[in-house]
């Protein structure tokens, strides 16, 4: 009796497992039967529509490399369509491909500048809402049209769509800009006192270049920083900013200074209902080029050079700050979040977007020369 029950139990168990397994089985999909989307580009198009560009990986072109003879094959295939919303575009492109499109490997999301200025809330929402897409995707704004960026095939990269991501990772490695991914963008978009930024990319004939930074107010792009301003921006906001600064002293000597390390401190002051900030930047660096008759071993001279460098850097930083505060009027620095964290009651009364342009922000910069390189003077 007991054995029979046990047998019955096992039988029913196996039956259920098999039934459930078959339901699961049907949902599996072998890896070669998916079309990997590697880059998505979104632009505005006339009549309130989007122009969506997908760059799909072509594994055959990658796999048969050693076999030879397939060099003519493109490693990435570009599809373009016009649509009312992003998913519609997805389906239009789907209709033209052999395998189901797979968004799990989207490396870069490229947005056209015009679209960025109109607002990209819809695009980011679609991206954050979908589960298949990755939050580590790079989000960049194209100078001009996003579709163009996708069509460029940079020479060094075997697989063109991976290029932008690799380049941005390299910039992080060199301490130029922090990693800016779609998750970071989406998070900043929704948090009080923060505004997102995104790197800007420009397409050349067969190369791509990082040209600057797009500043967003909520989901709308309001300003553009050039490459140098971008350095100063990250110097101020994140203590990053590996860069070279050439200065000229009153005596006509010129020096090039390489920033190697930045210590950043931000102080928040409150007087009544008025807040103010002071940013302290302790910059360390090395002399990488010197055109002078005097020896840098002379401490006094060294101090005077440091002074010149300090002034030059501080001037640029202040110029950047003024530009952002008065021209773009957006708190890309995240000062608002500090006010919120420190004085939550005051924050509730403030309209930060209105108040930010008039908030006094003082930048104090102090540059020191650490090393002179392999030459002693």
């Amino acid at each position, binding site marked *: 009796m007991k054995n029979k029950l046990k047998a019955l139990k096992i039988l029913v168990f196996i039956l259920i497992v098999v039934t459930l397994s078959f339901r699961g089985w049907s949902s599996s999909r072998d890896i070669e039967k998916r079309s990997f989307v590697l880059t998505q580009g979104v632009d505005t198009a006339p009549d309130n529509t989007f122009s969506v560009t997908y760059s799909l990986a072509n594994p055959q072109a990658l796999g*048969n490399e050693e076999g030879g003879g397939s060099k003519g094959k493109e490693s990435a295939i570009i599809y373009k369509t016009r649509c009312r919303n992003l998913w519609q575009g997805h389906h239009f492109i789907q209709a033209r491909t052999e395998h189901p499109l797979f968004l799990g490997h989207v490396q870069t999301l490229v947005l056209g500048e015009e679209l960025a200025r109109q607002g990209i809330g819809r695009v980011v929402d679609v991206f954050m809402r979908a589960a298949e897409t990755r939050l580590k995707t790079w989000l960049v704004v194209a100078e001009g049209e996003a579709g163009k960026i996708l069509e460029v095939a940079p020479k060094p990269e075997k697989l063109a769509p991976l290029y932008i991501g690799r380049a941005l990772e390299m910039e992080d490695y060199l301490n130029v800009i922090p990693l800016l991914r779609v998750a970071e963008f989406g998070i900043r978009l929704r948090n009080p006192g923060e505004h997102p930024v995104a790197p800007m990319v420009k397409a050349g004939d067969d190369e791509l270049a990082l040209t600057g930074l797009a500043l967003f107010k909520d989901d709308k792009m309001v300003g553009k920083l050039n490459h140098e301003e971008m350095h100063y921006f990250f110097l101020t906001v994140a203590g990053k900013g590996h860069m070279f600064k050439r200065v000229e002293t009153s005596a006509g000597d010129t020096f090039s200074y390489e920033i190697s390390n930045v210590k950043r401190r931000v102080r928040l002051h409150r007087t009544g209902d008025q807040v103010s900030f002071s940013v302290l930047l302790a910059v360390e660096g090395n002399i990488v080029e010197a055109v002078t008759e005097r020896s840098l071993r002379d401490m006094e001279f060294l101090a005077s050079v440091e002074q010149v460098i300090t002034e030059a850097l501080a001037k640029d930083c202040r110029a950047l700050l003024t530009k952002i505060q008065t021209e773009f009027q957006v708190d890309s620095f995240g000062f608002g979040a500090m006010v919120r964290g420190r004085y939550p009651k005051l924050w509730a009364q403030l309209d930060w977007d209105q108040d930010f342009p008039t908030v006094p922000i003082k930048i104090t910069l102090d540059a020191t020369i650490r090393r002179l390189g392999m030459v002693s003077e």
Partner: protein
Amino acid sequence: MSSEFKKPVPAAEIKERHRAEQVAANKAPTELTGSFETDLSLLRTLFHNSSDLVIRRFRLPIPEDLDVAVLYIDGLVDTRVVDQDIIQSLLRLSRIESVAERLKPGNAMDKIKAYLLSAGEIETSSAIEKISHTILSGDTALLIAGSKDCIIVNSRGFETRGVQEPTIEAVVRGPREGFSENIRTNTSLIRRRIKDPDLVIEAAVIGQRSGTDIAFVYIKDIADPQIVEEIKTKIESIKIDAVLESGYIEQLVHDQGVSLFPQMQASERPDKVAAGILEGRVAVIVDGTPFVLLAPVVWVQFFQSPEDYYEQSQLSTFIRLVRFVATAFSLFLPGVYIAMTSFHPEMIPTPLALALAAARTGVPFSLVTEILIMEISVEIIREASVRLPGPIGPTIGIVGGLILGEASVRAGIVSPLTVIVVAITTIGSFATPNHTTAISFRFLRFPFIFLGASFGLIGITTGLILLVIHLAGLESWGVPYMAPYAPYEPTGQGDAILRREFSFQRTRPPFLKPQDKHRLPRPEPRS
């Protein structure tokens, strides 16, 4: 609360009852009668005039001609013992005058034992069953006219394999001796390692027809008497016609329903068994097989090898972890591979994912089919290379594996990564020191392949949970199978997956409930 299983013994029981009835019907005598000729014919008919039964009759002058017969089975005895220590000594010594004088009065039996027999181990018995069993075991029976008892002389000396290097449980560092088929050799191998009078070797016989000798070996003041008692009663109550290998016992004492995991550990290494006995386990030696059983067992034991204790503890810990990882690979790798590529390709780094996709384009089968084809072929090659005659076995294995793998990739039937996965899986399964468990894990990877192909990683976890439930429910003679992890015992951790220094393993494994808990003395308090 756990469901209990009926033991598969009824058939054997019925048979024994049947046999007892027959014996009663024939009214076959159970004792010798004391009449020389009757007894001789009785024994001869008992063995059905078997051709290898040797009966040598001769006469001794005690006090006059006394009929004496020597019975033994040709081939089971050491003929030197029979010739010199029995026949020659009886005939020669009885003719020496000084001895002959003393032989005159009194009981012939006592005189023979006292003056004439030079053999070492003797006993007397009149029970036919006992006599027949000892003759069949290689002893020599000495039948004396006028006596109801018969002298049994130990003359066992059949051909056996000597002590050779163990083949399955090879180690790099450690003794090269392995158990052999002879139970006495085996007990001596253990005895030589543990020269302790408390080492108990208890004999028993199981198997109605095979009459296999077995021995329980344990240390009286270490092993938990309850566990010892339970093992003894359980094994002695086995009713089966023949026990040809210790695997019979291993399976017959299995009382927890279906399980792929052994309840006793089989080992052919005397050092391993000795270590087990010293920890408080009971060894069961079965005559006729070099595989000695150890009980109770716990799960982690199957990842331990005796050489772990011969090397530095840090190295051993590392090697144990390697084994553990290897086993995990052999169990999960194909399933996880399927799950990752077919369900979660987003997990794989993009360049690798594209390379995988590129490698698989042109492969006509689905990934599961591909994996199954390869796994089954590997199993076939493995099994075939075991069966193939000695020297060419490994060669064929390598040739088969290499050529098949290479050719199937070339032919576009499988993708290269599948070959790699299957190869790692197979090699990983051989890193488990215990043969039985290795097979269990190899078998279990098939369910994991199906689960991985059905629900991806979720399916793998589902399988893992079922496995954990199963393992957690197992007990080996009252010792939880997953000890010392469940129930967690801090003192047992020194020798589980980790192997700590000996100074951290002062105590014997607590889950074996040893009477003498300490392996090393407590450290002297520092003055």
